[in-house]
């Protein structure tokens, strides 16, 4: 594994160096700027493609070995120290970089690698002609490297470091719109918001993890015993808060739509489809890996409630969003909520309850599998949608819904994959997301045994499960509506902007087509991924029952004791075949075209096309208000739906208020501490020195 790490890290860093230095090198070699940029981008992205291919292939092989038991130990796990850093003080945190790969990590590594590879190939076409192409490519390489590191690193200081690296490199990319002629204020706001939220998240995570960070004793890592009682609750609470902040769960949903649209659209796909999954991965790792001790089951209820609220809130904002990127960013958070609901159900049903497996461990196994399944599916359809948005942006020059239209006719290579992605994200059969949302709901349904438990657990379960079932069902229907609005506005109807016919390059088309095909294939044959998912999920659940999910080419069968449900693949196939057959019999391709008329006059598309926001008016009207005085602040306090109506962004308003508070108090505090008086600074130096000495006395220097 050490060699693999060196190869991948070397490739990605080399790619980044080429990307960053390409303009300068081109000037040295007297190459024309355009050529230097093209070559620099290609040479910077190709290592990323290669590294992704290597990681994807080796993690896929590892997963297959785990599934067949060829990897040796069960549950399979491989660790390797790839970077040896001696700890400066005894009993200090263990600093060496240890990679720890098990089936779960291999699954996520494979996911990151496959999609970053796809995005890199796509970018080869998408970045063509972009003045900032080499810089984007370079930062993208480092972004991928940091994401891979965050997944592969063993729980310890390096997880925190790699999360910070992710923040650093992706924040670099957030500056893109500002650098390429967009609004500088929006760009700065986005970068600041992103850094602040990420740091708050990392600080919470770090503080929560301190009790279990490995310490260096005689140069070896020693993991302290997991905390218990109140200390454990505080730890779990902090860890979950930190990870929720980074994945955008309510009340931290505000940063995603502010930050994400500022990214170049190709890396936006990376961020939404992949990066938001890293906190989810860490949640699974920390909660179900028993790193914080056996997790009390009511934490599952907390997660379920949080995801229920998040799903509803974010889908409502997605519905009133005015441009594709913001709307899809909100949908990403909504899907993260569905994923977290699966995880919450797993915890609630006792996946991490400790040595005595509860009655509902079958449902817990299924919930975790469903959670992982939706992780994969969401990565798939969301990268499809974002890359489609990227192409739409390239051929029309805008992502504003009102300026788009008619793309299905004008640009079928973009329109058709985008439409398939839209069907997928709505969770409708016969596309891929249906089966993972189905599994998530089935795992909630199958957990009835939880009611036979102690009363406190049963009551928490009743409240959380009912809320989650209602909210998820509603959110799924609302997603379909919101997506119809997007698709109707951008793909159908009259086109409002000129479409550049030559706008779409072959790498873009190929990647979009492949992703769309994958959505269709996984929708038709949902069992394809099940062996891998089961392998990844089983070792994490106490008392896991391997038989809860049976999948073969003909059906997917859920069997938890007392409850069974099945989806046969035949109806899914029929949903593709029969319409074509029926339309053929009805001669639909020969139906004659006639000019349309409305209310007795000829139809004028420009004047009469119903807009998507009018279409969804029945739903947003109850939450919209007449325009009110918007309190000033950094983040937008309301989304404007029409010229006279707004939907209040409560989260943003609260953040704005908090920011004002912090600014005011730090001004008052800073004036006192930072007074400019030399004696005061001497005092600070003295204090710092004594603290350092104190630490040195308490923790003697490690002997090599």
């Amino acid at each position, binding site marked *: 594994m050490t060699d693999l790490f060196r190869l991948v890290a070397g490739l990605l860093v080399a790619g980044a160096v080429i990307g960053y230095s390409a303009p300068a090198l081109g000037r040295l070699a007297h190459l024309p700027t355009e050529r230097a940029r093209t070559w620099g981008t290609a040479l910077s992205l190709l290592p990323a493609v290669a590294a992704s291919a290597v990681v994807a292939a080796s993690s896929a092989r590892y997963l297959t070995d785990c599934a067949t038991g060829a990897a040796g130990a069960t549950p399979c796990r491989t660790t390797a120290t790839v970077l040896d850093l001696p700890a400066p003080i005894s009993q200090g945190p263990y600093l060496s970089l240890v990679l720890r790969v098990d089936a779960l990590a291999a699954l996520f590594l494979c996911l990151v690698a496959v999609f970053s590879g796809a995005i890199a190939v796509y970018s080869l076409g998408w970045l063509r002609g972009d003045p900032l192409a080499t810089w984007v490519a370079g930062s993208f390489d480092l972004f991928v490297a940091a994401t891979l590191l965050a997944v592969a690193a063993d729980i310890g200081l390096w997880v925190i470091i790699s999360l910070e690296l992710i923040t650093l490199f992706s924040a670099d990319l957030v500056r893109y719109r500002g650098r390429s002629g967009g609004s500088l204020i929006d760009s700065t706001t986005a970068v600041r918001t992103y850094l602040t939220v990420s740091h708050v998240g990392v600080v919470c995570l770090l503080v929560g993890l301190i009790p279990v960070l490995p310490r260096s004793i005689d140069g070896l890592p020693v993991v302290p015993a997991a905390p218990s009682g109140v200390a454990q609750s505080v730890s779990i609470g902090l860890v979950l808060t930190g990870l929720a902040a980074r994945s955008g769960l309510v009340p931290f949903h505000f940063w995603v739509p502010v930050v994400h649209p500022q990214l170049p659209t190709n890396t936006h796909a990376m961020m939404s489809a992949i990066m938001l999954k890293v906190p989810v991965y860490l949640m699974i790792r920390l909660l179900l890996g028993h790193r914080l001790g056996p997790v009390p089951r009511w934490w599952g209820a907390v997660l379920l409630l949080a995801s229920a609220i998040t799903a509803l809130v974010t889908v409502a904002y997605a519905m009133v969003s005015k441009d594709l990127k913001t709307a899809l960013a909100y949908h990403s958070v909504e899907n993260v909520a569905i994923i977290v609901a699966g995880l919450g159900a797993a915890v609630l049903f006792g996946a991490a309850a400790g040595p005595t497996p509860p009655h509902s461990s079958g449902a817990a196994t299924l919930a975790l599998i469903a959670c992982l399944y939706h992780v994969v599916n969401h990565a798939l359809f969301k990268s499809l949608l974002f890359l489609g948005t990227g192409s739409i942006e390239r051929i029309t020059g805008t992502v504003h819904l009102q300026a788009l239209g008619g793309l299905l006719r004008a640009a079928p290579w973009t329109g058709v994959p985008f439409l398939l992605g839209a069907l997928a994200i709505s969770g*409708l059969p016969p596309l891929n997301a249906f089966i993972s949302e189905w599994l998530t709901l089935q795992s909630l349904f199958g957990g*009835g045994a939880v*009611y036979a438990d102690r009363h406190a657990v049963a009551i928490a379960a009743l409240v959380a499960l009912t809320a989650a079932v209602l909210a998820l069902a509603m959110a*799924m*229907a609302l997603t379909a509506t919101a997506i119809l609005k997007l*698709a109707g506005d951008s793909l159908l109807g009259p086109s409002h902007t000129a479409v550049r016919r030559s706008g779409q390059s072959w790498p873009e088309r190929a990647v979009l087509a492949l992703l769309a095909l994958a959505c269709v294939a996984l929708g038709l044959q949902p069992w394809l991924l099940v062996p891998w998912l089961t392998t990844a999920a089983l070792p994490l659940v106490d008392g896991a029952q391997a038989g809860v999910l049976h999948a073969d080419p003909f059906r997917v069968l859920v069997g938890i004791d007392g409850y069974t449900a099945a989806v046969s693949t035949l109806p899914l196939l029929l949903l593709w075949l029969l319409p074509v057959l029926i*339309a053929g019999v009805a001669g639909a391709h020969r139906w004659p075209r006639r000019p349309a008329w409305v209310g007795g006059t000829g139809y004028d598309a420009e004047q009469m096309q119903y807009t998507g926001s009018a279409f969804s008016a029945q739903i947003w009207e109850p939450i919209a208000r007449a325009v009110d005085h918007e309190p000033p602040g950094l983040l937008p306090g309301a989304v404007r739906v029409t010229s006279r109506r707004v939907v209040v962004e409560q989260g943003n308003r609260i953040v704005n208020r908090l920011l004002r508070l912090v600014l005011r108090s730090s001004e008052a505090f800073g004036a006192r501490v930072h007074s400019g008086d030399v004696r005061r600074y001497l005092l600070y130096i003295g204090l710092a020195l004594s603290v350092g000495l104190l630490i040195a006395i308490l923790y003697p220097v490690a002997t090599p």
Partner: protein
Amino acid sequence: MNGLALTDLAWATAQWCLYVTLAPLVSGSLAWLEARLQGRRGPAPTQPYRDLRKLLRTRPAVPVQATAIFRLAPAVVFTCALLLGAALPPLHPGAGAMDLLLALGVIGLARFALTLAAFDAGSPVAVMSSGRQWFLHVLVEPTLVIAIYFSATRSILVARAGGGESARSPLTALVIGAVGLALLAETGRLPFDTHGSRLELTMIEEGPGLDYGGRGLALLRWAEAMRLTFALSLVALLTAGGLGAGAGAGPAISIGAFLLTMAALLLGLAGFELRQVRVRPRSALTLLTSAAGIVVFSLVALVVASASGRR
């Protein structure tokens, strides 16, 4: 394949075929009943068949700017309606049925396709009606999903308690009622206007297909009839299943119970539609949230009852 499985398959196929062929008759009899209750003679119950035959002979026109979506949508809607038939609980116990969540997904897909077609054709009325339909759908879906959750929980709790609880519990009856209410909205039978009227602005169910004529319209009409039949027979079958389970009798009695319930439901629906002229779309909110509330209440009652039964 053994003999028993073949019999099951034959029963299921027969039930599905009847569902497809008799669907227009169901919607025809509903219209006929309504007319009779109003004292009109009304069209014969078989009128939908004649309409379908007439429509199937003509080719529809396609708006100039429309894409292939407009041509494909009726076929998709029709396919979805066909598949719904497989989700009905079998009259003959032992035959399997399609998963109900999948059925919900299929209903959603039909709606999705038709709304896309409405956007495609560009007609404002069609898109507006679709928007109203989705508003209702968003409210209906949680009710139906939580009802499925109720039945799952019931089966698990009954299995854990060692079985024995009869399906004829009052809670189940409540849930079936709430599901019926939700399905009423889902099939566009909440009367926002007198149902016989053909005023564009008030049409919710017919609106999205407004741009279709000929074969396209025939497919949509037939699919709509099938969806109505699905909703009615789902409620009827669940009720008949509850009644039949108590009697513990063979298919003859359950078929009889089913037919009786179906007739009662048709009559009740006709009466309801005539009495309840003009529900405002917003007031559907109250109706549907109370349906969801009933199911949630039943769920809580079920869990509490099973917990206290354990003591």
